[in-house]
């Protein structure tokens, strides 16, 4: 056998193993309920997925199996999670979702991370009648999307909702005399950052604010200091950044170094990450950011405690809880229907309300849950909601008193 034939037999063995895997998966006794998810284990969105989605799936599956499984058809069936890596590539994602639906024949699928991936996968979920309880998909197109994909549900709010949350927070602070009228606004020049900035300009201006600095920076900027220096030079009362995780960290660090002393300092995605607090410690007291939670409800406290115990990590203070809630919705719908009938599950989700870690949630005629926190503020090591839509338990934002 020469080296070339070894290679050929290696790759055919690999293929055979793969095909054997496929057939084996479909003949296993239908005992556990199979639940599929396509993750970004690598690629640009992997960092966010690893914080917000993956630990919750682990926690949820463990909790269900610890109590014997889901009650369907009069028996307890455990759940089995099947995960594939798409490398944050839409083409791979679509392939993997197809693989879950037609080869693994999973009973249910969980939602992917990122607006684009939820929408790209939605046609396949629709074709095979999988409910898609989307979380990390913030969009203003909910009515159109839910009309197109009646199996798709939304839980984390709209782009406008998020911007309005920021506006309401700033208006409250202005009315209290904490800040003046001048806002320095920056955004990352990528899809969601551009969208948020574009939505924010008219909304903030209509609320009587003056945007004294309005610049974008490219994704992956290695040195953000000119942006912070520029913003500081415009002498703003509030600083708003529609940022992604790496630049949220960079902007905050640079603001500390430049001593950008504003009473309201907002950065968007990843401000809610425990890693943000780990990195900056007490310096971020009073920082505003996207998300927030109400840490005082017993359900939330129990969830955060279990998350820490099972995964060894703190849950993030935003979409983690929402993602867990989306799993609870699915769980309660499956048990409510009492069998793994996906069409009935979709109907059940449409027509019932669910008791989750976020409180009771239900879906409106656009399959949208209008209950979410939109702005949080770091207070004594907890990222507490200061603006929301439909929750009603936010606390008023306070002034940020310097970086110390």
């Amino acid at each position, binding site marked *: 056998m020469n*080296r*070339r034939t070894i*290679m*050929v037999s*290696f*790759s055919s063995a*690999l*293929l055979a*193993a*793969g*095909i054997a*895997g*496929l057939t084996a998966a479909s003949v296993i006794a239908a005992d556990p309920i199979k639940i599929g998810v396509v993750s970004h*284990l*690598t690629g*640009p969105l992997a960092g966010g997925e690893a914080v917000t989605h993956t630990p919750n799936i682990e926690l949820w599956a463990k909790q269900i199996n610890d109590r014997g499984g889901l009650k369907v058809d009069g028996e307890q069936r455990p759940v089995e999670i*099947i*995960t*594939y*890596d798409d*490398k*944050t*590539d*839409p*083409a*791979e994602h*679509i*392939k*993997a979702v*197809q*693989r879950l*639906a*037609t*080869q693994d024949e999973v009973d249910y699928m969980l939602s992917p991370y990122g*607006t*684009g991936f939820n*929408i*790209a996968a*939605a*046609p*396949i979920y629709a074709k095979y009648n999988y409910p898609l309880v989307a979380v990390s998909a913030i*969009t*203003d*197109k909910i009515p*159109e999307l839910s009309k*197109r994909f009646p199996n798709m549900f939304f839980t984390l709010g709209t*782009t406008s909702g998020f911007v309005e949350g920021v506006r309401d927070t700033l208006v409250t602070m202005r009315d209290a005399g904490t800040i003046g009228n001048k806002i320095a606004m920056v*955004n990352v*020049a*990528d*899809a*969601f950052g*551009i*969208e948020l*900035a*574009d*939505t924010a300009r008219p909304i903030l201006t209509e609320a009587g604010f003056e945007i004294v600095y309005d610049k*974008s920076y*490219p*994704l992956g900027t290695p040195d953000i200091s000119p942006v912070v220096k520029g913003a500081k030079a415009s002498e703003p009362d509030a600083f708003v950044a529609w940022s992604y995780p790496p630049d949220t960290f960079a902007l905050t660090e640079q603001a500390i170094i430049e001593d950008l002393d504003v009473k309201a300092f907002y950065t968007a995605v990843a401000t809610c990450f425990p890693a943000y607090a780990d990195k900056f410690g007490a310096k971020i007291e009073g920082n505003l950011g996207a998300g927030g939670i109400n840490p005082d409800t017993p359900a939330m406290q129990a969830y955060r405690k279990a998350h820490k115990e099972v995964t060894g990590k703190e849950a993030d203070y935003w979409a983690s809880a929402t993602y867990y809630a989306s799993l609870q919705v699915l769980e309660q719908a499956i048990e409510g229907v009492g069998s793994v009938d996906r069409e009935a599950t979709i109907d059940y989700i449409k027509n019932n309300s669910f008791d989750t870690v976020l409180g009771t949630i239900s879906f409106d005629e656009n399959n949208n849950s209008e209950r979410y926190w939109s702005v949080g503020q770091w207070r004594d090591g907890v990222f507490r909601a200061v603006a929301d839509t439909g929750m009603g338990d936010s606390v008023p934002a306070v002034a940020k008193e310097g970086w110390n």
Partner: protein
Amino acid sequence: MNSGEMKFLVIGVVLALGAASIPIVSDGYWLSIATTAMMYIALSTSWTLFSGPTHLIALSTGAFFGIGGYLVGSGMSDYDQSFWLMAIIAPVVATILAMLIGLATLRLSGVYFVIFTLGLAEMIRNLVSWVQNNFLGSRGLYVLTDFTEAHIYWMLLSVATIVFLAGWLINRSRLGFALRIIGNDEQVARHVGINTAWSKVILFMTTGFFAALVGAIVAPRYSYIEPNVVFSPQLSFLVVIMALLGGIHRLWGPLVGVIPFTLIWEAISISFPNSTTLFLGLSFLLIVYFIPNGFVGLFENLTGRMRK
């Protein structure tokens, strides 16, 4: 037309017809694999049209692909244009751009050309994002159409077929002859009176045209366009790697690179769902060491041995 060419044509037609029937005979899973493979076949083959004869490795596929996807997204979302109009405009824009780039890079050779195209792709991505941010504004680039996966597959198959036909015609033409001489020795080519500059530029334009067309067709499959995703440097690298795995000295080289590559990738995804990337990397290494001349080399070696 001699008998060899006749045979080539017949095989081509049979393959194309066979490929066209995949959506009818297979389920969604194999169709989704075939669609992804067809995307890479069209991209890698059109890439080889330029890079095969000239030996210049271009890392600009992502830029043209991105222009295709981005123009479709922007046109449909922000300006309410139809998919078809944008799918026509996008490749035209890309072709003009490719002409300018082609003219600008004539003096570059070897690795300088490679990295120039890489830098260019990154510059285009940054400029596009900046223009969108400052002048166009955007509420998200949604590409919502009624195309099914089968429609997209058939469109990609048509593009791939046209790429093959174009490659075949170029090989037969004066241009192809000229390019082969350029690839062997550019000095000689100049001495025998070949306009080396325009020959290269025309081929580069062809590559840009097809990459943008593929990007435009794939946009409805992605449904939501993010600059970061469509202007992907990873795509540029993957297209090059698949073509190199196949072999770039034959028109059908990339075809026999993409298909086993896609299947190996699929097998690895299934067998090692938690460390797909790690095992993909290892499989690249195995291929480099054990299939030194690409799949074309392997194939020709095997057929050569069979003839003995």
